[in-house]
């Protein structure tokens, strides 16, 4: 281990008071995988400790051990010096641990008050404690400036409001150690700012916060200390004030991170263009209204926006799964009339779905069979359009596995056994080998580690310099700002005009993401 900044003695000495939470030598093994390897952490009152690590570094396992969902193979957890009984969620809650999950655990059909009170009151009681609960909730809400209406249904709340309810729920139950798992994934930058102010208010009143994230800039702005996990081991523990982005990234990945070089090219003719396109959706997904945009050769256009503002519907439209109810879709200047995945693929559209597992693979089929899903009935892999040529298909797969560096023991292995990064390589391989003219990349690096992210980005940039147009949908503004040439923001099914990335900041995009689509970059909102 080449890290010498870790476990600095002065970082600990500077903390006041006795630790509220001590994790001592916790290890947890799943089969061959050592998910947590002798992890020791200390949390002091009144501080925000950031837990940084890539997917699979062991963050979630550690939290599950704290909350008694898993039992550690070795080690102990102490809260206020008292040993926490292992394997009991109740014990963790009673000891004052509170968790805000990435995916909220609220009942949509209940009010805010009912959600907060749920489980914290005796099941059988002669009188309702509704009024007391309401009083307590309102006083907590005022104290921490978490404005919510106790009587509203959770279903009617925005994502930011729901998160406030989650935090209030934990506080209501007397939590003094609040653990937030990737809390900003669903928030706009402005909502994130609000959350950070709340966290500061919490720690000022002596509570402690564990903030789990892999976004550097957030960690740098909100935390007091950072603990970095890599492959189940604690590889560093540093004061936030004494570190920087690159040092943290290196700790997290284990080596210096090289970012792909982005060069601006002269864009060519539009490959695909939407002119005043509206899409009706029957299933509750956000409809599109009057969307006009174009993706040209040799450029990457980013789509920014809070999840659920029509990106999914736009992706379905460009995948051939939905058809416009108004307006026209142009492919190289010619109106598209046939909407089906097969026709879009035949024209030269490469589609990278948002959710690899849900839309990308057939889990029990082998790797080589999964590489065929867009090749059905095509010669020469299929004879007479119906009978598989297994030899040709396996040869095809062998080439793709080599070219795209898909790591698998054998091509006969079930696709579900691939790691996230290799699964994404499989998805890239089967669409990119055909050298498509247009690539729809929907959250292409979500959940991947740094190495795989670099691989995906390099491939997209290579496609761009080869002459393809790329539409990149991402919830990560950093990704959009570093990779794209132009950016479009979506809000409530509408799209802003395309802005040159060089001229916008994350702040501009944040304002647009919260509804001001006509915002002029650099202008101060009224």
């Amino acid at each position, binding site marked *: 281990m080449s890290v010498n900044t870790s476990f600095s003695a002065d970082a600990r000495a500077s903390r006041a008071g006795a630790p509220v939470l001590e994790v001592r030598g916790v290890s947890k093994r799943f089969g061959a995988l050592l998910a947590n390897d002798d992890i020791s952490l200390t949390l002091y009152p009144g501080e925000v400790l950031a837990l940084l690590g890539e997917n699979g570094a062991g963050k979630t396992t550690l939290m599950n051990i704290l909350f008694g969902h898993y039992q550690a193979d070795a080690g102990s957890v102490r809260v206020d010096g008292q040993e926490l009984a292992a394997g009991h969620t109740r014990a963790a809650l009673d000891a004052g641990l509170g968790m805000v999950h990435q995916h909220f655990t609220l009942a949509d059909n209940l009010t805010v008050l009912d959600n907060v009170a749920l489980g914290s009151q005796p099941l059988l009681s002669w009188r309702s404690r509704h009024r007391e609960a309401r009083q307590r909730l309102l006083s907590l809400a005022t104290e921490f400036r978490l404005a919510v209406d106790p009587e509203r249904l959770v279903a009617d709340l925005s994502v930011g409001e729901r998160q406030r309810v989650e935090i209030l729920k934990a506080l209501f139950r007397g939590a003094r150690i609040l653990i937030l798992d990737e809390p900003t994934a669903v928030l706009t930058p402005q909502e994130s700012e609000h959350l950070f102010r709340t966290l500061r208010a919490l720690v000022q009143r002596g509570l402690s916060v564990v903030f789990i994230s892999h976004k550097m800039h957030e960690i740098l702005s909100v935390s007091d200390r950072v603990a970095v996990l890599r492959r189940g081991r604690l590889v560093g523990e540093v004061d936030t004030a004494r570190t920087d982005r690159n040092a943290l990234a290196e700790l997290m990945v284990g080596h210096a991170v090289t970012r792909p070089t982005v060069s601006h090219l002269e864009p060519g003719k539009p490959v695909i263009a939407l002119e005043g396109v509206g899409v009706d959706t029957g299933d509750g997904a956000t409809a599109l209204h009057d969307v006009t945009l174009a993706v040209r050769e040799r450029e990457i256009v980013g789509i920014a926006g809070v999840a659920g503002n029509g990106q999914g519907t736009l992706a379905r439209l460009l995948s051939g799964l939905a058809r416009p109810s108004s307006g026209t879709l142009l492919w190289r200047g010619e109106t598209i009339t046939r909407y089906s*995945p097969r026709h879009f693929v035949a024209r030269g559209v490469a589609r990278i779905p948002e959710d690899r597992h*849900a839309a990308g693979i057939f*889990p029990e*089929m082998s790797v080589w069979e999964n590489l065929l899903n*867009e090749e*059905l*009935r095509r010669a020469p892999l299929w004879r007479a359009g119906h009978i598989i040529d297994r030899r040709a298909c396996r040869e095809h797969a062998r080439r793709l596995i080599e070219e795209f560096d898909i790591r698998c023991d054998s091509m006969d292995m079930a696709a579900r056994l691939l790691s996230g990064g290799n699964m994404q390589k499989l998805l890239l391989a089967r669409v990119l080998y055909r050298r498509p003219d247009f690539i729809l990349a929907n959250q292409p690096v979500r959940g991947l580690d740094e190495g795989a992210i670099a691989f995906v980005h390099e491939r997209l940039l290579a496609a761009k310099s080869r002459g393809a147009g790329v539409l990149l949908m991402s919830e990560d503004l950093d990704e959009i700002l570093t990779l794209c040439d132009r950016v479009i923001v979506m809000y409530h099914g509408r799209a802003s005009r395309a802005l040159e990335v060089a001229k916008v900041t994350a702040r501009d995009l944040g304002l647009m993401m919260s509804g001001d689509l006509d915002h002029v970059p650099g202008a101060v909102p009224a």
Partner: protein
Amino acid sequence: MRLEPREHTPLWLIVTAPLAAVAVSLLLTSTLVLWAGEPVTTAYALLFKGAFGSRFALTETLARATPLILTGLAAAVAFRAKFWNIGAEGQLYCGALATTWLGTGMLEAHPAVLIPALFVAGALAGGIALLVPVFLKVRLRVDEVVTTLLLNFVILLLVNYLVEGPWKDPMSLGWPQAAPIIDEGVLPRLVERSRLHLGLVVGVVAALAVWLTLRYTVWGYEIRAVGQNPEAAAFAGIGVGATVLRVALISGGLAGMAGVTEVAGLKGYLTLDLSPGFGYAGIAVAMLAALHPLGVVLSAVFLAGIYVGADSMSRAVNIPNYIADVIVACSVLSVLVSLMLVQFKVRLR
């Protein structure tokens, strides 16, 4: 104890696991045999002899296996696509109805024409019986388990009406049965002085055809793909609705052909007790075979052997032939457990 997924499953394990499961189930049911007060080895020896021990026993077992192969294939192919067709029993009777309609004098032709025509008619009738459940599933998302299951009773009542009413054979001395199939339509015997008929060949050929289709054709790929992940299939441009329809027609058709073999091969005429639950037993056959089309042939013979052997055993010793149902149920459960063990390793800690 905990389970860990296996990265690789050795071939020997895939082959031996179901055999071990069957052995375990025989061991489990032997406690019932002991309870009945009979020696286990004698009972099982009698069962085996009654199923496979003589020319007569063997032909009886294979004749019993014939409809089970077809209904087992019907379940296997449908379950591969996660289309839960529980209505093979009704589809079997639809095939039987079509056979009776066409084979009792409607079409008079040489056997080389009439017999294939009966199979085509039976398969069509079985497939058509699934059109309504498929439409309801694809268009309105109605659960096919409910519709296919309940349709069984509708079809049985229709058969009941026909054999008691318009189709009742005047020569049947009042028994509720339809007129017999004309001689040209009766399936030829495979073995002299036995009940084993051409249907067995049809069943085995059907199993081969289903296996080849699933393994080597676009349709097979699409069926497996839709079964494993319909969303990914739709994303890739595979017509999910069309695939479900195709699977339903194949599945219903196979079950319908089981009706043909029973009416034209075994019994000669349609009655209300034509099938002692072959449609439902087909599900057990498919499960025992882990949905593998060639495995279906083996597991159908195994099941048929248990039933035929148990009948014979119950005549010799004091054990009711219901023991067959217990053995089959135990086998299905232990095979399901063994399939899990094929996918996962058990570790004791």
